[in-house]
């Protein structure tokens, strides 16, 4: 009986007073794991919070940034997620942009910009759809008029200036 208890003991972080309950921490860990698994299934890439990138980033898969990026980000057909620790000072071109951290720079999407709670965007936005959660911050201009041809041409134009890596990302400087 006692052995059975030991065998189901969670391997996650130890519970401390004031921390979420075991059930909550287990469920959040499970959802995080599911997110990571989905990201792997989609072939997504994660830039961790200790990573600083200065230069241009382009890719052909979904990308989550939790670190610092300064320059330009292009994910023509994919989703860019700026994590809660993400700090972006860049011009962004992507299909969908989800912001939980900070973005300073112009954002162009072909589908949607989604600013979540505590997310912040300062810059000019061109996006056919935009969502802002309570507690999010936005400063700049918004153009929601559908101009898919303009967006795709601007994407293609910038695409020619640099080649895209098939399975990864390219940048000028990476500091860990």
């Amino acid at each position: 009986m006692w052995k059975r208890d030991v065998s189901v003991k969670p391997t996650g972080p130890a519970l401390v007073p004031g921390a979420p309950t075991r059930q909550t921490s287990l469920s959040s860990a499970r959802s995080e794991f599911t997110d990571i698994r989905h990201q792997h299934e989609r072939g997504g890439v994660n830039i961790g919070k200790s990573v600083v990138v200065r230069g241009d980033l382009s890719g052909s898969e979904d990308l989550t940034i939790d670190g610092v990026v300064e320059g330009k980000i292009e994910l023509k057909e994919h989703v860019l997620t700026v994590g809660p620790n993400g700090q972006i000072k860049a011009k962004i071109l992507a299909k969908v942009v989800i912001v939980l951290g900070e973005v300073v720079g112009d954002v162009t999407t072909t589908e949607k910009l989604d600013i979540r709670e505590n997310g912040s965007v300062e810059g000019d936005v061109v996006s056919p759809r935009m969502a802002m959660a309570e507690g999010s911050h936005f400063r700049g201009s918004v153009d929601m008029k559908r101009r898919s041809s303009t967006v795709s041409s601007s994407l293609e134009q910038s695409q020619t200036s640099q080649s895209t890596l098939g399975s990864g990302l390219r940048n000028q400087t990476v500091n860990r």
Partner: protein
Amino acid sequence: MAITDLFYRRPAQKSASTADSPTNFPTNALPKLLSALRLHEQPRLLDLGPATGKNLTFFGEQIQCKIFIEDLFSDIDQHVIQGKTSELENFFISRFSQSNDSVDCVLAWDLFDYLEQPAKEVLATQLMRIISPSGFLLTFFSGSKSHDLVYTRRIILDESTLQNREYPGACNKKAPMLNRDIIKLFDQLKVVGQLLLRTSVREILFQKQ
């Protein structure tokens, strides 16, 4: 304190918490403004309040506006916190980068309630400069002074209904303006719609001549 006191206090606490709950109210000016904006291909709209998702979606998707967000309430907060409220008038002179006659509509909500007269005059002059001929200014003016440090977010629920949501700020409402003073303040604009709400707030829609 007797134990019964605790029970007497309960209703008071409840009413305080419900004071911050959103309230809906009708608008006369907004339908007029929207019908005028729909005549433009892509009207340029300047919102001087904080960005709200519903308003952005409404003006962006339904009216096809190009929206500029310049949250002057956060600017006021910064000046109040730094004790530089008297510098607001100079700040407003250089605050707006927009060129003359370049904006089709300005949403000033109840911004003028929180400003002293010199700052009001500078801001009004700047707004009249950037509004295009036959462009609009939508404002709300409170009928009473308040010591509460709260601002009100106006959210568009539909074409004829707005919702108030209060949020904490650093500044209180100043003495209310008389109608003639409001009209004098915007001497280059004419009033095209006016409604006195039950809350004694005056909703005024101006148009540049």
